[in-house]
C-alpha cells in the first residue's frame, strides 16, 4: 500500500496527505477520479488552515514581484517640465527597462532613469555623453563655451527642455552606476502607449520626420 495517493495524472499529492488526521479519512476510499477531487478540496482550505503557508507564499510572491521590478521592467509615473516636448509635464507613465541598469547597453540619445547624485530623487534625462566624449559644460547660449571630457565610468545627461532642466550642467557627470534603467515606452496621459526610441540616426539612414 503506497504511503501517498496517486491522482489521475500520476503525480503523488504527498504534501497534502501529510496534513494530519483530516486527510486520512479522504485517503481511505479513493479512486483515481476521486483523487483529483480530493486534492482540489484540500487545496482550497490549505491557506486558511495553515497561516504559515500563507505567509511563506506571500513572502515568495512579494520577493518575486520585487525582483521583476528591480531587474526586469518597472512602470512608474513621471512628472516635471524638464523633458518637454518628449514627455508631458503631468500624468505621464513610463516603462523603465532594468536590463539597462548600471549603464549596460546605453548609448548617446537614450532617455534614462537615474538616481540624482545630490539628493534622494530619481531623474529622467537624456544621455548625450558617454565616457571619453567631449560635451559642452554650460548651455549653448551661455557666455562660456567650455567643454569637458566625460570621465571614465560616468555619463553626461541633459533634459530636452534646457531652460527648465536641472541636469549635468548643474551637478556634473553622473556615474553610470547610478543609472536605474532605460526608458523604453511611455503611456501618454490618455493611456496612449508609445515606444520611446533613440532619435539619433547616422547620416545615411532616413530620418524619423
Amino acid at each position, binding site marked *: 500500500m503506497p504511503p501517498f495517493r496517486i491522482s489521475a495524472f500520476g503525480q503523488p499529492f504527498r504534501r497534502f496527505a501529510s496534513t494530519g488526521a483530516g486527510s486520512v479519512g479522504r485517503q481511505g476510499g479513493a479512486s483515481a477520479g476521486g483523487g483529483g477531487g480530493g486534492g482540489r478540496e484540500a487545496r482550497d482550505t490549505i491557506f486558511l488552515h495553515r497561516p504559515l503557508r500563507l505567509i511563506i507564499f506571500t513572502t515568495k510572491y512579494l520577493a518575486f514581484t520585487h525582483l521583476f521590478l528591480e531587474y526586469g521592467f518597472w512602470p512608474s509615473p513621471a512628472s516635471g517640465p524638464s523633458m518637454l516636448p518628449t514627455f508631458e509635464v503631468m500624468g505621464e507613465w513610463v516603462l523603465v527597462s532594468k536590463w539597462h541598469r548600471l549603464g549596460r547597453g546605453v548609448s548617446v540619445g537614450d532617455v534614462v532613469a537615474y538616481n540624482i547624485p*545630490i539628493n534622494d530623487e530619481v531623474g529622467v534625462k537624456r544621455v548625450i555623453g558617454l565616457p571619453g566624449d567631449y560635451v559642452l559644460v554650460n548651455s549653448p547660449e551661455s557666455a562660456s563655451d567650455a567643454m569637458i571630457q566625460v570621465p571614465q565610468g560616468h555619463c553626461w545627461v541633459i533634459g530636452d527642455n534646457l531652460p527648465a532642466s536641472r541636469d549635468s550642467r548643474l551637478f556634473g557627470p553622473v556615474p553610470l552606476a547610478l543609472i536605474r534603467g532605460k526608458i523604453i515606452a511611455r503611456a501618454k496621459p490618455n493611456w496612449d502607449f508609445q515606444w520611446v526610441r533613440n532619435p539619433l540616426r547616422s547620416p545615411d539612414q532616413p530620418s524619423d520626420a
Partner: protein
Amino acid sequence: MATWGGAGRRLRFFGQFTHYLIGYATWLPPLIWFNTSVAQITFISGPSMYPFLNAEYHESRRQDLCLVYKLYARKDLVRGMLVTFRNPDDPYKITVKRVVGLEGDVVRTRAPYPYEYVQVPEGHVWVEGDGDRSKDSNYYGPISARLITGKITHILSPWKRAGRVKWWEHPERPGVQKARA
C-alpha cells in the same frame, strides 16, 4: 493502476522531482532579495584597506570574509565607517573604503589629487583606503553618497580577527575640517 509498472514509476519520479525542484526554486527570489537588500557575505580583495582588512595580504593569498550590512546603508554615515559602494570608474565593481569626509567638510587631499583642498559637495562623501596602494577619492574625487551599497560590520574569517568591525577605534585622519560634528 496495477498495470502501470515501470513507466508509471518513472513518471512518478519525474513528477515528484519536478515538484520538489520547483518548490526549492521558489525560495530563490526571497534569498536574492535578502542578499541584495539586507545582508551579504563577501571576500575582500586587494591591499587598499591594509592592515585593517586583509592583514595577511603580504603573507598569504587568503582573503578576509566580511559581512556587509545593507539595510539603511546610506543612513547615519559617520566619519571612519567602512562602506561598500559601486566604483565610480566601473559600475560593475564594488569597492570597500573608509568614509573620511562628509558633505560640507574641507579635506586636505593627498597625491594624486590635483587640488590641495577640496570641499565635499552636497550629497557626496570623501572615501579613502587605509593602505598605501589605494585608488580612492584622492584619485576619483568625492563620490555621491547614493553609490554606497552597504557597511562592513563584521569580519567572519580568519578566526583570530573575527568579530565586530570596530571602525571607531581607528585613529582620526588629520586634515579634515568638519562642517558639523
